[in-house]
């Protein structure tokens, strides 16, 4: 028995040599934001926003955090990371990555080769937000501090807010992955533009076809319309519509609304000649938040407004659909529906050529259900 205990002891000692897999926070440099651009010769330019914690801030004794920005070029994402590690002195830790910004030019080529490592290495954060920027990502991240807030945090806040305002789809690196590979569905990403020297603005949605950015952007209310058409509604969304063009005072011409999606249906029909058509029906509830004309106590006026708003929103929807078809971005996943429920037709057609030509109808019914605390 003693002998066995001794042998067991030797085995256990083997396990006590220490840990291989430990990642101490003090050795790590947390990467909070990454920007990627095209560099010369098709190389990749990586701009990393890294949180550095300094514990030596003299009298206070409280560790203070600052952001530092490194950029390097390399052949692959991992290659650029190695370049940054050489300058950094700590371990490059992407596990807390919050935003990944892609430069416009880079996104116009297949983006999967760039994202590959994020999916492959288990330590990467898949919940990071993916953003496309006008110009280069380096320029955007170089702001470093936008209005006294670190750029990575500011970007994340702005994205979260815009998501709440139904301006951009709620997407992360992981959530676009099924669509990246799916021939029957495309996606869109938030589109950011730098403004002035230390500010930026989220413009709307950058439409993708397959794995490439198409160059087409839907801004403001158009983006919101697209999200509604796809049944994605968020907390708040506002439209300002010109319903009384005959009024003399400019402000009187408009109604500002707060809208709520009540119901969305997408029907895909395929006939015998494999001709595909789709119909989207939306029911929207509206609260008038600003309407200087104050005629909302009359039923007939409300009815007239309902009609006018429905008409204008339908027009917007038609424009959005036209843009989608021009960009060949199957945002609604009509292709996936054809594939699933009409597999024979799917085999007979080439979806890339077909999508821009199919007939997509939108029908929007809006109804004013609230007027605020005055009529």
């Amino acid at each position, binding site marked *: 028995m003693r002998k066995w205990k001794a042998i067991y002891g030797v*085995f256990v000692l*083997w*396990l006590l040599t220490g*840990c*291989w*897999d430990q990642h101490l926070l003090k050795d790590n440099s947390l990467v909070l934001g990454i920007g990627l651009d095209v560099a010369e010769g098709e190389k990749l330019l990586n701009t990393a926003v890294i949180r550095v914690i300094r514990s030596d801030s003299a009298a206070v004794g409280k560790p203070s955090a600052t952001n530092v920005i490194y950029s390097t070029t390399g052949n692959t994402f991992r290659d650029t990371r190695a370049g940054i590690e050489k300058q950094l002195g700590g371990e490059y830790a992407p*596990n807390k990555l919050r935003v990944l910004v892609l430069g416009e030019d880079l996104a116009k080529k297949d983006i999967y080769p760039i994202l590959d490592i994020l*999916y492959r290495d*288990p330590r990467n*954060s*898949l*919940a990071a937000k993916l953003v496309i920027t006008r110009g280069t990502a380096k320029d955007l991240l170089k702001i470093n501090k936008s209005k006294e807030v670190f750029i990575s945090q500011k970007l994340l806040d702005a994205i979260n807010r815009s998501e709440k305002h139904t301006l951009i789809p709620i997407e*992360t690196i*992981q*959530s676009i*992955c*099924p*669509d*990246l*590979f*799916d*021939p029957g*569905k495309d996606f869109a990403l938030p589109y950011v533009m730098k403004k002035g020297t230390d500010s930026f603005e989220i413009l709307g949605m950058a439409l993708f076809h397959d794995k490439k950015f198409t160059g087409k952007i839907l801004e403001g209310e158009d983006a919101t319309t697209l999200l509604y058409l796809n049944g994605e509604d968020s907390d708040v969304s506002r439209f300002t519509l010109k319903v009384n063009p005959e009024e003399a005072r400019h402000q009187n011409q408009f109604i500002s609304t707060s809208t709520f999606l009540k119901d969305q249906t997408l029907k895909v029909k395929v006939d015998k000649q494999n001709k595909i058509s789709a119909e989207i029906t939306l029911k929207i509830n509206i609260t008038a938040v600003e309407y200087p004309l104050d005629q909302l106590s009359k039923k007939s006026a409300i009815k007239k407004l309902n009609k006018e708003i429905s008409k204008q929103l339908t027009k917007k929807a038609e424009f959005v659909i036209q843009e989608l078809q021009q960009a060949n971005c199957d945002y609604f*996943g009509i292709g*996936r*529906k054809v*594939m*699933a*429920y009409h*597999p024979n037709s799917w085999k007979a057609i080439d979806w890339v050529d077909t999508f821009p030509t199919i007939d997509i109808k939108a029908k929007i019914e809006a109804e004013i259900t609230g007027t605020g605390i005055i009529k």
Partner: protein
Amino acid sequence: MNEKSITQRQLFFMIFQSQIGIGLLSLPVSVHKYTQSDGWISVLIAGFSIQVVIVLLWILLWGFKGKTIYEITVIVFGKFLGKIINFFYMLFFLLVMSLLSLLFADLLKKWILNYTPFSILILLLILTGIYIGKNNLRVLARLYTLATGVIIISIALPWFAFSTNIQLAYLFPIGQSGLKNMVIGAHDAIVAMIGFELMLMILPFVEGTYKQSLKNISLANMMVTLFYGYFSVSCYLIFSPEEIKIVPEPVLYILKAVNFTWIERLDLIFLSIWIIPMSTSFVTYLYLSSSGAANLFHKGKRKHPVWYLPLIVFLIGLFLSSESGIEQFGKYVSFSSYAFIVLIPLLTLFISIVRKKFNYRSSSL
């Protein structure tokens, strides 16, 4: 024999725990290769086939009440041939045990412990396995029953992932791959669901009648089939068909994708929980192979084989650590499992009937 006996409920949990293991994590993908999104149908086919095999094994054991497979082969084939067959059985169980520990170490190395040497990971599993496996059957049964709570928790985990977009359309058209491919796919599902052959060894030690045992084993198999089917469907709903091809462990991957403010890597938590069912499968095979070795060389005492058999596993682990090597090894083991779980018992049954050794009225119970 009495201190070894287990109850009917414990039998259920033992079979359930032995069947569920590491295979679950990669099952949806390995089946998907052949069946597209019809993989869950393959899982059902596999569950049904296993049910047929279970009945077959049960008939064999029923004809030799109170005897384990190691004793039955000796009765049917004679002392010499029977012992040779028993030796191969032991070898087979040993190889399955090695495969399980290789897969376990490979998985942990990939997902959590990138820098820890392969041999140490195997050692971790083996030492735990020995510690549990050297006890008698009743202790194992109690542990397996207790560990089932963990599996119930794991059922809830994919629900978190459903908060990201799921697409019902990914499942359609149902039956797109054709029956032939579904049956081929069922092979991979069966490999993930083996473990029920534990009944060959423990059925004589179960309290109650053989008929009750059959009912409980079938019930366990049904639960496992549903459980696997549930996880497969979850994966097919979340990953698009083209995407799932490049994700070898989709069950973990869907959990990695979700994040909350209070927790970031749900997959690590799931994996930590899943280590328990993985090690119970290991212990099952340790029990089976050490019983074999005990029967052959040690007059039925398992004291020594529980130590030296894992050592062999460890040595195999030292030499085989590349992913493709493990895959090749897995292929051999999975095909030989048909021989040992279906073919040899069938042959034994056939010969025992021909030689008039089969007697269901025999009763020591």
